[in-house]
């Protein structure tokens, strides 16, 4: 036993022997607390380290905990017999302590939590609305040539969400067209109506699937990158710098991105429509023995300009949603490394949710007008 506890009259002595390297603090601490006589009056607790040889900070930790216990119980103690450096370290641990600010907020009950949640939702809504407001005014300013839209930023964003997205958009929409045709064909074949695969794919892609696929791809690709870029700028205090220079964040960061995406989205939607039909055609021609000319004839018959414009309109709306979500969460990003990740996730998820919600609303409205 490297520590022995000795009680002499009103004094209590801790005697240490040997090495205290990688020493088990908790069990020794328990022993100490147990051997402290409960009721007997103790004047001073002191230490004997004559036979102490080597020690590391686990030993200091132990002594520190012992002193904490002693202080809590309001007992007397003396550090006299400790080696100088040990004594110094212990004194240091109690000296100059900064006082933690008032205790951290406690867990609240469920009623409080609901109220808290409601308040947070409300303030988030307000923040979102004022962000949209600000962006709207930026656009007005842009129309009257009062906003600074840096051409470089705009072209960079346009290049990023236009040409660089063509590959992935083409591939995915081709596959979607292919799947749509394949699944449809299985059903239509039972009626011998496989030729209508062409109409199915055309109407499906052009009216809504093209726009939705592009929307989802661009939310993951460009929306996320907007949020990450602006979020990192927030972390580096670049956004603050802009604000203090009096440059509206919405002009400088949001405008170029929204403009770029709003221009790119309809074009990408057309591309997706075309690639989807191509995917459908490859199924029809290769698997269903439809001749190419037949396929194109039925596809062309099914193609209708209203549907086309509805699809393109969705593309534009999705572009606005994605860039708003990306920029909003980027600008409202926290100040540490995690927060950029959180902002990116939120941007993508909320963009997709809003796209679905808005699609529903548009569909209902169009139905009212019989479009």
């Amino acid at each position, binding site marked *: 036993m490297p520590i022995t506890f000795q009680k002499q009259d009103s004094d209590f002595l801790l005697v240490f022997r040997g090495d205290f390297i990688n020493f088990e603090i*908790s069990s020794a601490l328990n022993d100490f607390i147990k051997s402290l006589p409960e009721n007997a009056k103790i004047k001073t607790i002191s230490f004997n380290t004559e036979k102490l040889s080597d020690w*590391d900070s686990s030993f200091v930790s132990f002594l*520190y905990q012992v002193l904490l216990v002693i202080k809590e119980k309001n007992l007397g103690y003396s550090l006299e017999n400790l080696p100088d450096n040990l004594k*110094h370290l212990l004194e240091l641990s109690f000296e*100059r302590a900064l006082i933690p600010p008032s205790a951290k907020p406690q867990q609240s009950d469920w009623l409080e939590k609901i109220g808290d949640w409601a308040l947070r939702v409300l303030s988030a809504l307000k923040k979102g609305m004022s962000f949209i407001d600000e962006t709207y005014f930026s656009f007005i300013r842009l129309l009257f040539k009062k906003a600074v839209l840096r051409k470089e930023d705009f072209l960079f964003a346009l290049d990023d969400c236009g040409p660089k997205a063509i590959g992935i958009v083409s591939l995915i929409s081709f596959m979607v067209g292919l799947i749509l045709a394949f699944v449809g064909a299985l059903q239509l074949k039972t009626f011998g109506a496989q030729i209508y695969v062409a109409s199915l794919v055309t109407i499906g892609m052009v009216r809504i699937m093209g726009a939705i696929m592009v929307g989802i791809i661009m939310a993951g690709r460009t929306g996320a990158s907007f949020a990450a870029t602006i979020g990192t700028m927030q972390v580096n205090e670049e956004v603050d710098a802009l604000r203090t220079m009096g440059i509206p964040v919405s002009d400088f960061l949001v405008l170029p991105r929204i403009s770029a995406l709003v221009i790119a989205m309809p074009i990408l939607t057309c591309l997706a429509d075309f690639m989807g039909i191509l995917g459908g055609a490859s199924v029809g021609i290769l698997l269903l023995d439809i001749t190419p000319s037949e396929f194109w004839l039925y596809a062309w018959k099914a193609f209708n300009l209203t549907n086309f414009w509805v699809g393109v309109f969705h593309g534009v709306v999705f572009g606005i949603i994605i860039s708003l979500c990306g920029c909003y969460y980027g600008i409202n990003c926290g100040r540490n490394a995690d927060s950029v990740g959180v902002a990116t996730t939120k941007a993508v998820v909320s963009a997709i949710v809003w796209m679905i919600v808005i699609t529903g609303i548009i569909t209902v409205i169009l139905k009212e007008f019989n479009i």
Partner: protein
Amino acid sequence: MITPPAIQVENLTLAYGNRVLLKNADFSVKKGDIFIIMGASGSGKSSLLRILTGLTKPASGKILINGTDFLNASEEQQLNIMKKCGILYQSGALFSSMTLAENIALPLQQYSTYSKEDISYLVSLKLALVGLAGFEEFYPSEISGGMKKRAGLARALALDPEILYFDEPSAGLDPVSSRLLDNLMMDINQSLGTTLVVVTHELDSIFTIAKNAIFIDATTQTISARGNPHELLKNPPNENIYKFLTRGKNHA
């Protein structure tokens, strides 16, 4: 047996591409020393520190840490040496997703055999040593810059290092906090016997804490002065060090 110096640097050349910062430098740091690396901005102090801590490799030269060749050691030996070195980065470099307690516990969990409970005792001692007792459950974002430095120091102390490196510890601190940090560094040096290697150009701090120092001279790419800063001020070996130690004032 003569104990080898904590750090011995031989014939070290520091360069980025063909831009040489330091040519054939030699110096050694005694055990228990407080060793200051001085030099003008851009003279390569931080780069030298990166090399001493194994983050980058020098163009050429030899570094012995506690007598072991650091650069040519096996990976395991290098890791063992690095475990004996603590580093305080300029901004504290605390992990923002962890509480202070978790930050300090991390190296202990990784490299020691202590039980969970013992680790928490060690953590509270380290925090108390730097004056942050009771801040265990705070996140780095909830404390001030000076506190972050202290917490970073607590983490650097976690494994009872033999050598502690500091890159500009007093940068961004108010004079009082920076004096407190200086005192803390001297206390740690005195009671734990830790060797401190400090990059700084804070003259106050240099004259208060330094036992030894070197001056990296950007014009000659050499160590143009070495020794105790008070001595260097009395008998400056060249004009650059004199200007540095007197803030460029009163030279003829």
